[in-house]
């Protein structure tokens, strides 16, 4: 079986006094795909940020490829081949589209360079048309493409997409899903947060549901598809 890539053990995270994550266990293996689900405000983004060291868990541990990264700086974790597309985008406004992509370019952990500038351009032709525009001049969807492209430029082993299709036109969203599938096929692991449950469960092999900072479901995509009442109960659809 393939190796463990990223693990969270018994993670408790607080914002000031409010206790958000109540002892979460999470793990993802190389090449695996996980759909992280839950209503607004349940702690999905917080879990991701805790693992990346963007917020510090108060208890618990974070492991990357078996090594302790609990106290590592965010960039050290990220350099282990983890790319993050945050919700709400976070593109660099004062950089042009080209610069946004170039600044993050890096070979993968194993030295591979599959994702080049040209390949990103092929994948998102729309960005090619806006290549010299400043980041602040893009439409919402264009910004979204740019963040995904920027993450791919780091040639990651694990791609974390937090609401990556927010604001994308259906056609593009489908295109993203197609690309993610393709990425997965090349062996890159993915964690996806998205409200399109149908799409994510069909891409990912595992699904996890968070309710109020606790894991209420962790199983295969097939299992969750077989239990629509679970989705109904925890996600309200």
């Amino acid at each position: 079986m393939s190796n463990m890539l990223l693990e969270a053990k018994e993670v408790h995270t607080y914002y000031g006094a409010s206790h958000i994550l109540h002892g979460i266990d999470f793990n993802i293996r190389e090449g695996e795909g996980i759909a992280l689900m839950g209503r607004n405000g349940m702690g999905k983004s917080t879990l991701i940020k805790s693992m990346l060291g963007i917020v510090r868990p108060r208890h618990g541990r974070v492991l990357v490829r078996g090594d302790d990264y609990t106290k590592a700086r965010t960039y050290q974790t990220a350099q282990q081949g983890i790319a993050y597309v945050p919700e709400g985008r976070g593109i660099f406004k004062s950089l042009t589209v080209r610069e946004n992509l170039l600044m993050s370019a890096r070979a993968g952990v194993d030295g591979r360079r599959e994702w080049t500038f040209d390949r990103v351009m092929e994948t998102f032709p729309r960005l090619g048309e806006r290549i010299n525009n400043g980041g602040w001049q893009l439409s919402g969807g264009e910004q979204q493409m740019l963040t995904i492209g920027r993450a791919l430029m780091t040639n990651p082993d694990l791609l974390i997409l937090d609401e990556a299709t927010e604001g994308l036109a259906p056609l593009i969203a489908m295109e993203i899903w197609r690309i993610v599938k393709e990425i997965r096929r090349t062996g890159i692991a993915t964690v996806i947060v998205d409200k399109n449950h149908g799409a994510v469960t069909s891409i990912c092999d595992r699904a996890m549901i968070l309710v109020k900072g606790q894991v209420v479901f962790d199983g295969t995509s097939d299992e969750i598809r077989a239990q629509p009442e679970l989705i109904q109960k925890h996600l309200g659809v």
Partner: protein
Amino acid sequence: MSTTTKNEVLLQADRLTRRFGGLVANQDISVTLERQMIHVLLGPNGAGKSTCINMLSGDLPPSEGRIHYLGKDITALTAAQRSQVGIGRSYQRTNIFPQFTVLENVRLAAQSRRQQPWSLFTKAMEQKWALDKARACIEEAGLGKRVDWVSGVLSHGEQRQLEIAMVLSTDAQVLLLDEPLAGMGSEESASMVEVLKRLRQTRGILLVEHDMDAVFAVADMITVMVNGQLLECGPPAQIKASVAVQQAYLGTEDSFHV
């Protein structure tokens, strides 16, 4: 609230054009918005939908074209003035007062309807009408449990809900909503669709949204843009069936099964 006449034309944009340097983000776009109608603006990313809304709301001046509200030419009015006459908007990218509580965010929005800059000695918190209005709108947007939270610490989806509560509390007759559902969970989206339907009873709504389930659940009229140009305009059924629209925007049914 003012009297409402069915199908009264609230907002009319004539041949709006907006250029950014060499790029034509909107070309000759005309939109009509009637009361008790939800008019949806669709289009691929970068088609110019937000630009169009920005022109209607006064955030961006059009390069060409005119805008009329209730028959009056409002092209020259600023964003604030348009808000005062009754055009409210929400933003695609969350745009709130992050240091304030949810209540204060919405209360400020409500207060904008009766500004009394000269009355330096009344307490804002004693203006009951604004508080009541704010609470009602927060409830309506589904944020009842978060009234006293500082809005900056809300989750992304909750901030999107707050955005809606704010525009609601301004009593705007015309609502320009730029992807209100983006970032909301499916449950919240569903309840927001109900809110939209309720709002439609008294106002006119221009909606930009990429959530097709929601769009087809509420749209009375759909305009599709591509590359700044008008592609098609018509009732939902017509749009759904249009081959051009499918190619440019919706995709075909089978491509849904990734």
